[in-house]
């Protein structure tokens, strides 16, 4: 019988990425750059929310944006046209998420050393991006009203890794069976610390609250 030799490994496949991500966070801390990782389903209004937020903060902070998608550059172009700030498009080459190494490459290409705030718009997906730490300082998640208030029950990991949940498209609330109280309760079950901010990115309602949260976050990151 052929002999099989076994080599014990006992190692999480996420261990290396987690280490890379921690290192990246330390480097960002030294540079005084705050990285926000924004995640959501496709079509939740991430890009519109970012444009509204950036336009409220661009006089106070030096901002840059990285758009991650499987293909295309529509989001990076849209951000640049609507806000005038530097933005680059990252292609994940078919992958459903960004990891810390890809994020680092994006930051290098963006020459992000000058920025106070870099916003990473992750691939639209509620499963995979939650598993891979990008090295960001905080994770934000955008949930839009048409998606339903039960999303936190279906995608628990996404909600448990987020520091803030922005609920977008509040203007269409009367047309959907979206229960805001239930939604908040389900988010709290997954993550008692998460802040919930209802907005309408199209009209700009509520975006001030999110922008103020982000501004204070960046200030604290640069001080401490």
């Amino acid at each position, binding site marked *: 019988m052929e002999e*099989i*030799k*076994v080599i014990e490994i006992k190692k999480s496949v996420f261990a290396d990425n987690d280490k890379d991500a921690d290192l990246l966070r330390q480097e960002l801390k030294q540079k005084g750059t705050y990285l926000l990782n924004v995640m959501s389903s496709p079509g939740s209004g991430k890009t519109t929310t970012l444009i509204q937020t950036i336009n409220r903060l661009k006089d106070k902070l030096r901002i840059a944006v990285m758009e991650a998608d499987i293909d295309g550059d529509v989001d990076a172009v849209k951000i640049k046209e609507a806000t005038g700030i530097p933005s680059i498009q990252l292609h994940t080459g*078919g992958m459903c998420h960004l990891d810390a190494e890809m994020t680092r490459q994006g930051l290098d290409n963006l020459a992000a050393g000058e920025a106070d705030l870099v916003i990473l718009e992750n691939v639209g997906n509620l*499963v995979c991006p939650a598993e891979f730490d990008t090295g960001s300082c905080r994770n934000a998640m955008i949930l839009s009203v048409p998606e339903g208030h039960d999303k936190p029950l279906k995608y628990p990991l996404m909600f448990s890794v987020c520091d803030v949940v922005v609920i977008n498209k509040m203007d269409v609330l009367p047309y959907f069976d979206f229960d805001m109280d239930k939604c908040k309760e389900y988010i709290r079950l997954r993550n008692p610390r998460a802040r919930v901010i209802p907005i309408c990115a199209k009209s700009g309602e509520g975006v001030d609250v999110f922008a103020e949260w982000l501004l204070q976050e960046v200030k604290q990151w640069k001080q401490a």
Partner: protein
Amino acid sequence: MHELGIVFYIIRDVKQAAAENNVEHVSGVVMNIGEVSTIVPQYLTDCWRWAADKEDLLRGSELKIHILPAVTHCGDCGRDYATVKHGRNCPHCNSPNTWLLHGNEVEIKEIEVS
């Protein structure tokens, strides 16, 4: 399709372990996969076949999956229970104050060389 991304991570770690142990060909890789890790085992082995056969080190190697049961602990009554059967709320006292003890693992257990 995060299984493909995870397969690339596994390949990277196996290559590293093989180099450290002077291994030229790997015949099998054994994974510990938690029941609620969101990995679909069939997708993982399909992606493995496609990606591993492109590497000399791993050509023809088998990815073997051990499923680890998920166990949740209740913070109120202190008991443990099977996560998949009972879900988020404790079946003993109905408390939602519960957290996962095991079942989220995506771990390379061992590498087989023959």
